[in-house]
Protein backbone atom coordinates (compact mmCIF):
# COMPACT_ATOMS: atom_id res chain seq x y z
CA UNK A 1 0.00 0.00 0.00
CA UNK A 2 2.26 2.77 -1.17
CA UNK A 3 -0.44 4.68 -2.98
CA UNK A 4 -1.78 7.70 -1.13
CA UNK A 5 -4.10 9.09 -3.80
CA UNK A 6 -5.86 7.43 -6.66
CA UNK A 7 -8.47 8.83 -8.99
CA UNK A 8 -10.43 7.08 -11.67
CA UNK A 9 -12.22 8.74 -14.55
CA UNK A 10 -12.70 11.88 -12.53
CA UNK A 11 -14.82 14.49 -14.28
CA UNK A 12 -16.36 17.76 -13.19
CA UNK A 13 -18.57 20.02 -15.25
CA UNK A 14 -19.80 23.50 -14.47
CA UNK A 15 -22.85 23.83 -16.65
CA UNK A 16 -21.61 23.21 -20.19
CA UNK A 17 -17.89 23.65 -19.44
CA UNK A 18 -15.85 20.62 -18.51
CA UNK A 19 -13.32 21.59 -15.86
CA UNK A 20 -12.02 18.03 -15.47
CA UNK A 21 -12.43 15.43 -18.18
CA UNK A 22 -11.73 11.82 -17.22
CA UNK A 23 -8.65 12.15 -15.03
CA UNK A 24 -6.80 8.96 -14.03
CA UNK A 25 -3.96 9.38 -11.57
CA UNK A 26 -2.00 7.50 -8.95
CA UNK A 27 0.21 9.34 -6.47
CA UNK A 28 2.73 7.44 -4.36
CA UNK A 29 3.91 8.30 -0.86
CA UNK A 30 7.25 10.05 -0.57
CA UNK A 31 6.85 12.06 -3.77
CA UNK A 32 6.64 15.78 -4.40
CA UNK A 33 4.36 16.23 -7.36
CA UNK A 34 3.99 19.36 -9.44
CA UNK A 35 0.50 19.84 -10.87
CA UNK A 36 1.19 22.22 -13.71
CA UNK A 37 -1.00 23.85 -16.28
CA UNK A 38 -2.19 27.23 -17.51
CA UNK A 39 -5.02 29.11 -15.85
CA UNK A 40 -8.32 27.27 -16.14
CA UNK A 41 -6.74 23.89 -16.83
CA UNK A 42 -8.47 22.28 -13.82
CA UNK A 43 -5.73 22.36 -11.16
CA UNK A 44 -7.81 24.05 -8.49
CA UNK A 45 -10.91 22.01 -9.37
CA UNK A 46 -8.95 18.80 -8.88
CA UNK A 47 -7.57 19.88 -5.52
CA UNK A 48 -10.98 21.08 -4.32
CA UNK A 49 -12.60 17.75 -5.19
CA UNK A 50 -9.91 15.98 -3.14
CA UNK A 51 -10.99 18.17 -0.21
CA UNK A 52 -14.73 17.60 -0.64
CA UNK A 53 -15.26 21.28 -1.39
CA UNK A 54 -16.58 20.32 -4.81
CA UNK A 55 -18.50 17.19 -5.72
CA UNK A 56 -17.38 15.34 -8.86
CA UNK A 57 -19.83 14.96 -11.74
CA UNK A 58 -18.58 11.41 -12.30
CA UNK A 59 -15.67 9.17 -11.33
CA UNK A 60 -14.04 9.07 -7.91
CA UNK A 61 -11.03 9.94 -5.79
CA UNK A 62 -9.63 7.73 -3.04
CA UNK A 63 -7.19 9.10 -0.51
CA UNK A 64 -5.55 6.45 1.64
CA UNK A 65 -8.41 4.21 0.53
CA UNK A 66 -11.23 6.58 1.52
CA UNK A 67 -13.46 8.88 -0.48
CA UNK A 68 -13.04 12.52 0.57
CA UNK A 69 -14.69 12.90 3.99
CA UNK A 70 -13.88 13.11 7.68
CA UNK A 71 -11.32 10.28 7.44
CA UNK A 72 -9.35 11.91 4.65
CA UNK A 73 -9.53 15.37 6.22
CA UNK A 74 -7.65 14.05 9.23
CA UNK A 75 -4.64 13.26 7.05
CA UNK A 76 -4.86 15.87 4.29
CA UNK A 77 -3.36 19.29 4.84
CA UNK A 78 -4.79 21.76 2.36
CA UNK A 79 -3.66 25.20 1.32
CA UNK A 80 -6.43 26.93 -0.60
CA UNK A 81 -5.91 29.57 -3.25
CA UNK A 82 -8.32 31.79 -1.31
CA UNK A 83 -7.58 33.47 1.99
CA UNK A 84 -9.97 31.81 4.36
CA UNK A 85 -8.82 33.56 7.54
CA UNK A 86 -11.65 35.19 9.47
CA UNK A 87 -11.51 38.79 10.61
CA UNK A 88 -11.80 38.40 14.36
CA UNK A 89 -9.00 36.11 15.49
CA UNK A 90 -5.39 36.82 16.32
CA UNK A 91 -2.64 34.72 14.75
CA UNK A 92 -2.17 32.94 18.09
CA UNK A 93 -5.90 32.14 18.23
CA UNK A 94 -5.99 30.56 14.78
CA UNK A 95 -3.02 28.43 15.84
CA UNK A 96 -5.05 27.33 18.85
CA UNK A 97 -7.96 26.63 16.48
CA UNK A 98 -5.83 24.31 14.33
CA UNK A 99 -4.49 22.62 17.43
CA UNK A 100 -8.06 22.02 18.61
CA UNK A 101 -9.23 20.39 15.40
CA UNK A 102 -6.19 18.61 14.00
CA UNK A 103 -4.51 15.93 16.10
CA UNK A 104 -1.37 16.12 13.92
CA UNK A 105 -0.83 19.87 14.34
CA UNK A 106 2.33 21.07 16.07
CA UNK A 107 2.06 24.57 17.58
CA UNK A 108 5.83 24.60 18.26
CA UNK A 109 6.52 24.27 14.55
CA UNK A 110 4.04 27.02 13.79
CA UNK A 111 5.52 29.50 16.30
CA UNK A 112 8.98 28.66 15.05
CA UNK A 113 8.03 29.48 11.47
CA UNK A 114 6.21 32.66 12.52
CA UNK A 115 9.42 33.80 14.17
CA UNK A 116 11.49 32.99 11.10
CA UNK A 117 9.14 35.00 8.88
CA UNK A 118 8.86 37.87 11.38
CA UNK A 119 5.13 37.60 11.97
CA UNK A 120 3.83 38.74 15.36
CA UNK A 121 1.54 36.05 16.87
CA UNK A 122 -0.45 38.79 18.59
CA UNK A 123 -1.45 40.63 15.43
CA UNK A 124 -5.04 40.43 14.30
CA UNK A 125 -5.68 38.47 11.14
CA UNK A 126 -7.65 41.28 9.54
CA UNK A 127 -4.77 43.75 9.86
CA UNK A 128 -2.32 41.50 7.99
CA UNK A 129 -1.35 42.24 4.40
CA UNK A 130 -2.38 39.80 1.71
CA UNK A 131 1.10 38.35 1.43
CA UNK A 132 1.39 37.90 5.20
CA UNK A 133 -2.01 36.18 5.30
CA UNK A 134 -0.77 33.73 2.69
CA UNK A 135 2.33 33.09 4.74
CA UNK A 136 0.24 32.46 7.88
CA UNK A 137 -1.95 29.99 5.98
CA UNK A 138 1.08 28.18 4.66
CA UNK A 139 2.58 28.01 8.15
CA UNK A 140 -0.67 26.52 9.49
CA UNK A 141 -0.75 23.94 6.72
CA UNK A 142 2.92 22.97 6.99
CA UNK A 143 2.79 22.67 10.79
CA UNK A 144 0.72 19.54 10.43
CA UNK A 145 2.21 16.10 10.22
CA UNK A 146 -0.13 15.09 7.42
CA UNK A 147 0.03 12.19 4.98
CA UNK A 148 -0.90 14.28 1.98
CA UNK A 149 -0.30 17.99 1.43
CA UNK A 150 -2.43 19.62 -1.23
CA UNK A 151 -0.97 23.03 -1.89
CA UNK A 152 -2.79 25.25 -4.36
CA UNK A 153 -0.45 28.01 -5.56
CA UNK A 154 1.64 28.04 -2.38
CA UNK A 155 4.12 30.65 -3.56
CA UNK A 156 1.99 32.77 -5.86
CA UNK A 157 1.59 35.81 -3.65
CA UNK A 158 4.78 35.93 -1.59
CA UNK A 159 8.09 37.65 -2.28
CA UNK A 160 11.05 35.68 -3.72
CA UNK A 161 12.98 35.69 -0.43
CA UNK A 162 10.10 34.12 1.48
CA UNK A 163 9.53 31.81 -1.49
CA UNK A 164 12.88 30.08 -0.91
CA UNK A 165 12.18 29.67 2.77
CA UNK A 166 8.73 28.25 2.06
CA UNK A 167 10.02 25.74 -0.48
CA UNK A 168 12.69 24.76 1.98
CA UNK A 169 10.02 24.27 4.63
CA UNK A 170 7.96 22.12 2.30
CA UNK A 171 10.84 19.77 1.50
CA UNK A 172 12.17 19.50 5.01
CA UNK A 173 8.82 19.25 6.76
CA UNK A 174 7.29 16.24 5.12
CA UNK A 175 8.21 12.71 6.02
CA UNK A 176 8.89 9.76 3.74
CA UNK A 177 5.39 8.34 4.07
CA UNK A 178 3.75 11.58 3.02
CA UNK A 179 3.22 13.06 -0.43
CA UNK A 180 3.00 16.66 -1.57
CA UNK A 181 0.98 17.83 -4.53
CA UNK A 182 1.48 21.46 -5.42
CA UNK A 183 -0.10 23.40 -8.21
CA UNK A 184 1.61 26.42 -9.70
CA UNK A 185 2.58 28.15 -12.86
CA UNK A 186 5.80 29.55 -11.38
CA UNK A 187 7.67 26.50 -12.60
CA UNK A 188 11.26 27.67 -12.68
CA UNK A 189 11.14 28.56 -8.98
CA UNK A 190 9.81 25.21 -7.96
CA UNK A 191 11.38 22.81 -10.45
CA UNK A 192 14.32 21.89 -8.27
CA UNK A 193 12.13 20.44 -5.50
CA UNK A 194 9.82 18.34 -7.67
CA UNK A 195 10.00 14.57 -8.22
CA UNK A 196 7.06 14.12 -10.56
CA UNK A 197 5.30 16.33 -13.05
CA UNK A 198 1.68 16.27 -14.14
CA UNK A 199 0.64 18.58 -16.97
CA UNK A 200 -3.03 19.45 -17.08
CA UNK A 201 -4.57 20.91 -20.19
CA UNK A 202 -8.27 21.68 -20.57
CA UNK A 203 -9.14 19.22 -17.83
CA UNK A 204 -7.06 16.34 -19.13
CA UNK A 205 -3.71 14.89 -18.12
CA UNK A 206 -1.39 15.44 -21.09
CA UNK A 207 1.85 14.35 -19.40
CA UNK A 208 2.67 12.38 -16.25
CA UNK A 209 6.40 11.69 -15.78
CA UNK A 210 9.22 12.05 -13.32
CA UNK A 211 11.48 15.07 -13.63
CA UNK A 212 14.41 12.80 -14.50
CA UNK A 213 12.45 11.18 -17.31
CA UNK A 214 11.64 14.59 -18.71
CA UNK A 215 15.30 15.64 -18.66
CA UNK A 216 16.37 12.35 -20.29
CA UNK A 217 13.67 12.11 -22.91
CA UNK A 218 13.31 15.72 -23.94
CA UNK A 219 16.71 17.03 -22.95
CA UNK A 220 15.23 20.18 -21.50
CA UNK A 221 14.00 21.63 -18.23
CA UNK A 222 10.39 21.31 -17.09
CA UNK A 223 9.98 25.05 -17.56
CA UNK A 224 11.12 24.85 -21.19
CA UNK A 225 8.90 21.84 -21.85
CA UNK A 226 5.93 23.63 -20.29
CA UNK A 227 6.43 26.61 -22.58
CA UNK A 228 6.51 24.24 -25.55
CA UNK A 229 3.47 22.16 -24.62
CA UNK A 230 1.32 25.11 -23.71
CA UNK A 231 2.52 27.48 -26.42
CA UNK A 232 -0.17 29.98 -27.24
Amino acid sequence: MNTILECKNLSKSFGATKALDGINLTIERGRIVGLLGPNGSGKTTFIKICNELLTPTSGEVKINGFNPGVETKKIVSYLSEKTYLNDWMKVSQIIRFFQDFYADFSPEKAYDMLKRLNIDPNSRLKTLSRGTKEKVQLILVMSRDAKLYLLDEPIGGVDPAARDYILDTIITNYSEDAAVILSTHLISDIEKVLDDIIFLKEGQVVLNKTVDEIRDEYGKSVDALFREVFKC
Partner: protein
Amino acid sequence: MLAKLLKYELKATARWFLPLYAALVIFALINRALIQNDPSVLAEAANLWKIAFILSILVYVFLFVGIMVVTFVVVIQRFYKNLLGDEGYLMFTLPVQTWKHIASKLLIAMLWNFSSAVVGFCSIMLLIPARELGELDLMLAEFQKYLGTMGYFSISLLALAALAAGIIQMYTAIALGHLFRKHKLLASFGMYIGLNTVNQMVYMLIIPPFLNTMIPFAEPAFFTSNRLNTLILFFSITLAILAAIYYTVTNIILKRKLNLE
Protein backbone atom coordinates in the same frame (compact mmCIF):
# COMPACT_ATOMS: atom_id res chain seq x y z
CA MET B 1 -15.77 18.08 17.99
CA LEU B 2 -19.26 19.57 18.30
CA ALA B 3 -18.26 21.12 21.63
CA LYS B 4 -15.24 22.75 19.99
CA LEU B 5 -17.33 24.06 17.12
CA LEU B 6 -19.82 25.49 19.62
CA LYS B 7 -17.01 27.18 21.53
CA TYR B 8 -15.65 28.93 18.44
CA GLU B 9 -19.11 29.81 17.19
CA LEU B 10 -19.90 31.41 20.54
CA LYS B 11 -16.63 33.35 20.49
CA ALA B 12 -17.17 34.54 16.93
CA THR B 13 -20.64 35.88 17.72
CA ALA B 14 -20.28 37.12 21.31
CA ARG B 15 -18.25 40.14 20.19
CA TRP B 16 -21.42 41.46 18.53
CA PHE B 17 -23.92 40.79 21.27
CA LEU B 18 -22.23 41.38 24.61
CA PRO B 19 -21.36 45.07 23.98
CA LEU B 20 -24.87 45.73 22.66
CA TYR B 21 -26.49 44.03 25.67
CA ALA B 22 -24.30 46.01 28.04
CA ALA B 23 -25.15 49.29 26.27
CA LEU B 24 -28.89 48.50 26.36
CA VAL B 25 -28.87 47.76 30.07
CA ILE B 26 -26.84 50.90 30.81
CA PHE B 27 -29.28 53.10 28.89
CA ALA B 28 -32.25 51.41 30.54
CA LEU B 29 -30.68 52.30 33.90
CA ILE B 30 -30.03 55.90 32.81
CA ASN B 31 -33.64 56.23 31.68
CA ARG B 32 -34.84 54.73 34.93
CA ALA B 33 -32.78 57.24 36.93
CA LEU B 34 -34.16 60.11 34.81
CA ILE B 35 -37.77 58.95 35.21
CA GLN B 36 -37.41 58.67 38.97
CA ASN B 37 -35.87 62.15 39.27
CA ASP B 38 -38.40 64.17 37.34
CA PRO B 39 -37.83 67.78 38.46
CA SER B 40 -41.33 69.17 38.13
CA VAL B 41 -40.63 72.26 40.24
CA LEU B 42 -37.78 74.19 38.65
CA ALA B 43 -38.54 75.26 35.07
CA GLU B 44 -34.91 75.59 34.01
CA ALA B 45 -33.91 72.17 35.30
CA ALA B 46 -37.04 70.73 33.70
CA ASN B 47 -35.92 71.77 30.21
CA LEU B 48 -32.50 70.24 30.68
CA TRP B 49 -34.14 67.11 32.03
CA LYS B 50 -36.42 66.87 29.00
CA ILE B 51 -33.50 67.06 26.58
CA ALA B 52 -31.55 64.44 28.50
CA PHE B 53 -34.61 62.21 28.73
CA ILE B 54 -35.47 62.43 25.04
CA LEU B 55 -31.87 61.77 24.06
CA SER B 56 -31.44 58.76 26.30
CA ILE B 57 -34.81 57.29 25.31
CA LEU B 58 -33.83 57.69 21.65
CA VAL B 59 -30.53 55.89 22.24
CA TYR B 60 -32.37 53.17 24.14
CA VAL B 61 -34.89 52.59 21.34
CA PHE B 62 -32.08 52.69 18.78
CA LEU B 63 -30.17 50.01 20.72
CA PHE B 64 -33.29 47.92 21.19
CA VAL B 65 -34.04 47.87 17.47
CA GLY B 66 -30.32 47.41 16.79
CA ILE B 67 -30.21 44.23 18.85
CA MET B 68 -33.19 42.79 17.00
CA VAL B 69 -31.59 43.58 13.63
CA VAL B 70 -28.16 42.26 14.66
CA THR B 71 -29.71 39.03 15.99
CA PHE B 72 -31.43 38.48 12.67
CA VAL B 73 -28.45 39.45 10.52
CA VAL B 74 -25.88 37.44 12.49
CA VAL B 75 -27.97 34.26 12.12
CA ILE B 76 -27.87 34.59 8.35
CA GLN B 77 -24.36 35.98 8.07
CA ARG B 78 -22.70 33.26 10.16
CA PHE B 79 -24.21 30.52 8.04
CA TYR B 80 -23.67 32.23 4.71
CA LYS B 81 -20.23 33.69 5.27
CA ASN B 82 -18.61 31.16 7.59
CA LEU B 83 -19.81 28.06 5.77
CA LEU B 84 -20.55 29.06 2.19
CA GLY B 85 -18.15 31.99 1.78
CA ASP B 86 -14.34 31.93 1.70
CA GLU B 87 -14.20 30.87 5.37
CA GLY B 88 -15.97 27.69 4.28
CA TYR B 89 -12.64 26.56 2.81
CA LEU B 90 -11.36 26.33 6.35
CA MET B 91 -14.53 25.03 8.01
CA PHE B 92 -15.31 22.29 5.51
CA THR B 93 -11.75 20.94 5.49
CA LEU B 94 -11.83 20.36 9.25
CA PRO B 95 -12.29 16.69 10.10
CA VAL B 96 -15.86 17.28 11.29
CA GLN B 97 -19.15 15.88 10.01
CA THR B 98 -21.33 18.34 8.15
CA TRP B 99 -24.31 17.92 10.48
CA LYS B 100 -22.18 19.19 13.35
CA HIS B 101 -21.41 22.41 11.49
CA ILE B 102 -25.15 22.99 11.04
CA ALA B 103 -25.89 22.04 14.65
CA SER B 104 -23.28 24.42 16.04
CA LYS B 105 -24.62 27.32 13.96
CA LEU B 106 -28.22 26.50 14.90
CA LEU B 107 -27.70 26.08 18.65
CA ILE B 108 -25.68 29.28 19.01
CA ALA B 109 -28.19 31.19 16.87
CA MET B 110 -30.99 29.95 19.15
CA LEU B 111 -28.99 30.94 22.20
CA TRP B 112 -28.56 34.52 20.97
CA ASN B 113 -32.19 34.80 19.94
CA PHE B 114 -33.19 33.67 23.39
CA SER B 115 -30.78 35.94 25.24
CA SER B 116 -31.68 38.94 23.09
CA ALA B 117 -35.30 38.38 24.08
CA VAL B 118 -34.40 38.02 27.77
CA VAL B 119 -32.14 41.08 27.81
CA GLY B 120 -34.76 43.10 25.92
CA PHE B 121 -37.46 42.05 28.38
CA CYS B 122 -35.31 42.80 31.43
CA SER B 123 -34.43 46.23 30.10
CA ILE B 124 -38.13 47.03 29.74
CA MET B 125 -38.70 45.81 33.30
CA LEU B 126 -36.03 48.27 34.44
CA LEU B 127 -37.97 51.10 32.83
CA ILE B 128 -41.34 50.28 34.38
CA PRO B 129 -41.84 51.95 37.76
CA ALA B 130 -42.25 49.50 40.64
CA ARG B 131 -45.85 50.57 41.37
CA GLU B 132 -46.96 49.42 37.90
CA LEU B 133 -45.40 45.99 38.15
CA GLY B 134 -48.72 44.75 39.55
CA GLU B 135 -49.98 44.78 35.95
CA LEU B 136 -47.58 41.98 35.23
CA ASP B 137 -49.09 39.86 37.99
CA LEU B 138 -52.53 40.41 36.49
CA MET B 139 -51.30 39.29 33.10
CA LEU B 140 -49.78 36.16 34.60
CA ALA B 141 -53.01 35.41 36.45
CA GLU B 142 -54.92 35.72 33.17
CA PHE B 143 -52.43 33.37 31.51
CA GLN B 144 -52.91 30.83 34.33
CA LYS B 145 -56.68 31.07 33.96
CA TYR B 146 -56.61 30.08 30.29
CA LEU B 147 -53.69 27.67 30.12
CA GLY B 148 -53.03 26.48 33.67
CA THR B 149 -49.57 25.57 34.96
CA MET B 150 -49.20 23.22 32.01
CA GLY B 151 -49.28 26.35 29.86
CA TYR B 152 -45.76 27.36 30.89
CA PHE B 153 -44.48 24.09 29.54
CA SER B 154 -46.46 24.05 26.30
CA ILE B 155 -45.76 27.70 25.49
CA SER B 156 -42.01 27.22 26.13
CA LEU B 157 -42.01 24.19 23.87
CA LEU B 158 -43.86 26.11 21.17
CA ALA B 159 -41.38 29.00 21.37
CA LEU B 160 -38.44 26.61 21.18
CA ALA B 161 -39.82 24.68 18.21
CA ALA B 162 -40.83 27.87 16.38
CA LEU B 163 -37.38 29.37 16.95
CA ALA B 164 -35.57 26.27 15.71
CA ALA B 165 -37.83 25.85 12.69
CA GLY B 166 -37.56 29.54 11.81
CA ILE B 167 -33.76 29.49 11.86
CA ILE B 168 -33.32 26.20 10.00
CA GLN B 169 -35.78 27.36 7.38
CA MET B 170 -33.40 30.25 6.65
CA TYR B 171 -30.43 27.85 6.47
CA THR B 172 -32.33 25.59 4.08
CA ALA B 173 -33.25 28.55 1.88
CA ILE B 174 -29.60 29.65 1.77
CA ALA B 175 -28.39 26.11 1.03
CA LEU B 176 -30.98 25.72 -1.75
CA GLY B 177 -30.06 29.12 -3.15
CA HIS B 178 -26.44 28.04 -3.19
CA LEU B 179 -27.29 25.31 -5.69
CA PHE B 180 -27.82 28.01 -8.29
CA ARG B 181 -24.79 29.00 -10.29
CA LYS B 182 -25.69 32.68 -10.41
CA HIS B 183 -27.62 35.14 -8.23
CA LYS B 184 -27.30 32.88 -5.19
CA LEU B 185 -28.61 35.47 -2.72
CA LEU B 186 -31.63 36.30 -4.83
CA ALA B 187 -32.28 32.57 -5.26
CA SER B 188 -32.02 32.08 -1.48
CA PHE B 189 -34.60 34.80 -0.94
CA GLY B 190 -36.92 33.17 -3.47
CA MET B 191 -36.40 29.80 -1.81
CA TYR B 192 -37.34 31.28 1.56
CA ILE B 193 -40.65 32.49 0.17
CA GLY B 194 -41.13 29.08 -1.43
CA LEU B 195 -40.52 27.29 1.86
CA ASN B 196 -42.99 29.62 3.58
CA THR B 197 -45.61 28.48 1.10
CA VAL B 198 -44.74 24.88 1.90
CA ASN B 199 -45.22 25.65 5.60
CA GLN B 200 -48.63 27.21 4.99
CA MET B 201 -49.72 24.16 3.02
CA VAL B 202 -48.58 21.82 5.77
CA TYR B 203 -50.52 23.82 8.38
CA MET B 204 -53.65 23.85 6.25
CA LEU B 205 -53.44 20.11 5.65
CA ILE B 206 -52.83 19.19 9.26
CA ILE B 207 -54.41 21.70 11.64
CA PRO B 208 -58.11 21.70 10.54
CA PRO B 209 -58.50 17.90 10.58
CA PHE B 210 -56.84 17.80 13.97
CA LEU B 211 -59.21 20.45 15.31
CA ASN B 212 -62.19 18.57 13.94
CA THR B 213 -61.28 15.31 15.60
CA MET B 214 -60.42 16.99 18.88
CA ILE B 215 -63.30 19.37 19.38
CA PRO B 216 -66.93 18.67 18.64
CA PHE B 217 -67.94 22.18 17.66
CA ALA B 218 -71.39 22.00 19.16
CA GLU B 219 -69.98 21.74 22.65
CA PRO B 220 -70.50 24.84 24.78
CA ALA B 221 -67.18 24.96 26.70
CA PHE B 222 -65.13 25.39 23.57
CA PHE B 223 -61.67 26.33 24.79
CA THR B 224 -60.74 24.48 27.94
CA SER B 225 -57.16 24.84 29.10
CA ASN B 226 -56.58 21.17 28.36
CA ARG B 227 -57.68 21.62 24.80
CA LEU B 228 -55.64 24.76 24.30
CA ASN B 229 -52.54 23.03 25.64
CA THR B 230 -53.10 19.99 23.43
CA LEU B 231 -53.47 22.29 20.45
CA ILE B 232 -50.27 24.15 21.34
CA LEU B 233 -48.39 20.89 21.84
CA PHE B 234 -49.67 19.55 18.55
CA PHE B 235 -48.55 22.71 16.80
CA SER B 236 -45.13 22.48 18.50
CA ILE B 237 -44.66 18.94 17.29
CA THR B 238 -45.62 19.94 13.75
CA LEU B 239 -42.99 22.68 13.88
CA ALA B 240 -40.40 20.31 15.32
CA ILE B 241 -41.01 17.82 12.50
CA LEU B 242 -40.73 20.60 9.93
CA ALA B 243 -37.46 21.67 11.57
CA ALA B 244 -36.14 18.10 11.42
CA ILE B 245 -37.02 17.84 7.72
CA TYR B 246 -35.34 21.17 6.95
CA TYR B 247 -32.30 20.12 8.93
CA THR B 248 -32.00 16.89 6.93
CA VAL B 249 -32.41 18.71 3.62
CA THR B 250 -29.74 21.27 4.56
CA ASN B 251 -27.39 18.50 5.64
CA ILE B 252 -27.86 16.56 2.39
CA ILE B 253 -27.24 19.65 0.28
CA LEU B 254 -24.09 20.66 2.17
CA LYS B 255 -22.78 17.11 2.21
CA ARG B 256 -23.52 15.94 -1.31
CA LYS B 257 -23.95 19.08 -3.34
CA LEU B 258 -21.43 21.44 -1.81
CA ASN B 259 -19.76 23.53 -4.49
CA LEU B 260 -17.59 26.25 -3.05
CA GLU B 261 -16.40 28.48 -5.84
